[in-house]
């Protein structure tokens, strides 16, 4: 496939090595004699934000950017980011996706409901939507080979058979870009990725990972707790401990210098105020 050129989207989280991985692919294409353009997008943060790289090769490439629905393949270093990139993937195109998950703090904001904003590892649904899903736990495979840091080389190994580049170009590029002492580990990881059998071997692996990762049983409260404040015992601004420790910033001091609830709807019932009040002026009631 992609005998006349192609468009690849690589995506992951800042710090996962998207930029290096796409530099390796771009250099491979260059070594194989193609015209190449590559453009990465990353936000303001060094780590933790989304990083994506558009890579296009052909006889003569104009745009460095891929249009929605026009990527011939997507390579995702992280589960959520793989889903995010789906609108770029051409229908029927392969999705190479790592089963690693990096849950951002922003997905953990529903403190009363306890619902995670992070999508479940639902591989069956993904296969139904996309068709050609090449999922693997690259970290686990790389770790088994001795170096977790080589996980992106596993993914490049999965990608390699999809592209019209000779193996020598791949290895030459890989060796030139990874740190010198890690060349052997990365080559091993690359070959391991290349040898993976899709879908049988990796679907089994994905099912295991899903069982492990989706085990978020239990339920959030779904409603705020209620505070009972004995104003007579409260020292107000002279103390203010509860106001300062409340993780939800629910408390304030009122006009007569006593603590009051300012955001009743946000109280998760964590009991820090109750536990830390030196005057036993606050009691948390779980019921409404």
């Amino acid at each position, binding site marked *: 496939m992609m005998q006349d050129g192609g468009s690849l989207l690589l995506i992951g*989280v800042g*710090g996962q090595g998207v930029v290096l991985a796409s*530099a390796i692919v*771009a250099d491979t294409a*260059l070594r194989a004699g193609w*015209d*190449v*353009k*590559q*453009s*990465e997008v990353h*936000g*303001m*943060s*060094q*780590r*933790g934000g989304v990083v994506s790289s558009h890579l296009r090769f052909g006889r003569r*490439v*104009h*745009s*460095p*950017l891929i*249009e*929605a*629905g026009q990527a011939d393949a997507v390579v995702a270093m992280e589960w*959520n980011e793989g*889903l995010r*990139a*789906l*609108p*770029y*993937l051409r*229908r029927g195109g392969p999705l190479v996706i790592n089963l690693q998950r*990096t*849950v*951002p*703090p*922003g*997905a*953990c904001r529903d*403190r009363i409901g*306890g619902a*995670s904003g*992070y*999508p479940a590892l639902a591989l069956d*649904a993904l296969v139904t939507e*996309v068709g050609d899903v090449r999922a693997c736990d690259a970290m686990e495979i790389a770790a088994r080979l001795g170096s977790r840091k080589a996980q992106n080389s596993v993914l490049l190994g999965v990608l390699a058979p999809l592209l019209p580049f000779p193996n020598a170009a791949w290895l030459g590029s890989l060796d030139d870009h990874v740190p010198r002492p890690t060349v052997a580990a990365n080559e091993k990881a690359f070959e391991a990725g290349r040898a993976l059998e899709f879908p049988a071997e990796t679907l089994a692996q994905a099912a295991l990972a899903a069982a492990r990762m989706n085990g978020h*049983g*239990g339920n*959030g*409260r779904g409603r705020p707790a209620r505070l009972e404040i004995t104003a007579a015992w409260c020292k107000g601004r002279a103390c203010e401990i509860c106001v300062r420790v409340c*993780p*939800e910033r629910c408390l304030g001091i009122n006009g007569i210098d006593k603590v009051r609830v300012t955001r009743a709807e946000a109280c*998760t*019932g*964590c*009991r*820090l105020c109750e*536990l830390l009040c030196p005057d036993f002026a606050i009691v948390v009631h*779980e019921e409404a």
Partner: protein
Amino acid sequence: MAASKASASPEPATATSPATSRPLLLSGNEAIARGAREAGVRVATGYPGTPSTEILETLVRLDPGRQVYVEWATNEKVALDVALGAAMGGARALCAMKHVGLNVAADTFMTAAYTGARAGLVIVTADDPGIHSSQNEQDNRLFARFAGVPLLEPADSQEARDFTVEAFDLAERFDVPVLIRTTTRVSHARGVVTPGHLQVAPVLGFERAPGKFVMLPSNARPRHRALLERLEAMTREVEASPLNRIEWRDRALGVVTSGITYHYVREVYPEASVLKLGWTHPLPQGLSCEFAAGVGRLVVVEELEPFLEEQLRALGLAVEGKAWFPRDGELTPETVRHGFERAGCLPASESRPLSSGQTATRPPVLCPGCPHVAPFVALRQLGAVVAGDIGCYTLAATEPLLAMDSTVAMGSSIGMAIGLARSGGATGPVVAAIGDSTFLHAGLPALADAAYNGTRVTVLILDNATTAMTGGQAHPATGTTIRGDAASVVDLPAVCRALGVASVRVVDPYDLAATHLALEQAVASPGVSVVITNRPCVEAPAKVRDHPFHVIAERCTACQACMNLGCPSITWSEGWHEERRKVLIDVGTCTGCTVCAQVCPMEAMVPVPGWSPKR
């Protein structure tokens, strides 16, 4: 000017090899550095700013023999002054900055157009349409018209290299600084570049020319006339410039375009005739009219302002542009396609992309162990009104820290804090939060103002000993130069005292209580006060990785206090306590800053047992 060619090096082709003809895969910024090096640049200056930063960094890598003087200047105005002085001294000079940097350098820039230089002076402005990492998306092509200098707009890495070489020649032929304008997609996209050979550009030497360089009114008036005459000459020259070309194809539609949008047009509408402009100020009027006469319909595709469109319309041409293409944001192949569809040039496309389903948003966050976190936790607790500034710490304005109330321009925090304090309307103590590099860039005059006028504000200098947001560049308080050489170090507390600040505190931002106390005392002190935090950035120039922490799950009562830090290493675990999610620390990314352990009321966060630092 005459330029002899150095012999080609037979060395292997890498991005840093000095001379080669093997094609290289370079970003636009790397290609500009290469072009400047090939053109014999002697002095290169700039201030870090996305998407321009890699130009000077690459130049350093390309020049291990140190034939070029390269410096990070304290700000863009200083950078341009240095470059102008170098050119006045007869050395080819390059000055690189991001678009908003040219606002800072504008004072010099506008008058440098009058003075011209002796040797070539090339200024690179890297614009950021789409605001990937900036505070606005101003179109700096307008600056070229404003000042009356030639404007070159490369469309890809090859042109970035070629136009840079050409720019030095143009600058010398017309005795005027040349502005090269890139955008994020030119600066940061990589493409194949066939490099050229190193030229030898001898230093011409200084010659006294007060009529040209001393801009007293009596000299400036004739220099303005001289600039207009040079513009007139350029207007003739641009007509025949190979930087502009007509590509005749189907003549029903003619597209005028420049920069990266040329490639988008070629991608989505390969049949259209194109007037591809590389030298866009002064505009090649004759060529434009010739093109317009040869096509049925004339459409301009350009990012941001209708810069070309308005000039073409002023020539009396019937031209369309911003009626179909957005004036804000970055153009992409999609938006260009949609514009052609709206204009009726292309049939409506029926793409039905796959759906992402529900995904977690992943906004930029401060890194694990970032020393900027604790000061903002303290500021929020103090109920401060916080005037912020430009840097990683601007992220303190977002969830969950929510502790910054303004961010406008480099150094604005202190002046705005003074104004907030003087407004009488602030709802809490007024604090300016500014990084070390930004403080040196444009904070010093404002702090002097606060001290001089006796305004009661607290200035929090977040000194992480680097210019972090752009990737960790050196500055005058880091003790190193752009080449990594040892340098003098600005003593920040001493500088603040010397400016007239009596109350100066230095605090460890990994000590939350001490940071809180220092800020509490500072806001309580009369007049201007300064608090300086002194932990280095965890990512640059060196990675800081201390003993990581983990969570003892049995102790965690799921109060979420640690989640209020926004640390990317802390996330929900699979455990619950009283219908709330317990937390866990990703030991692989934890840097051991200890701040979460300080906010945890249950002492659930403890150092990972048995950990030893890697060699």
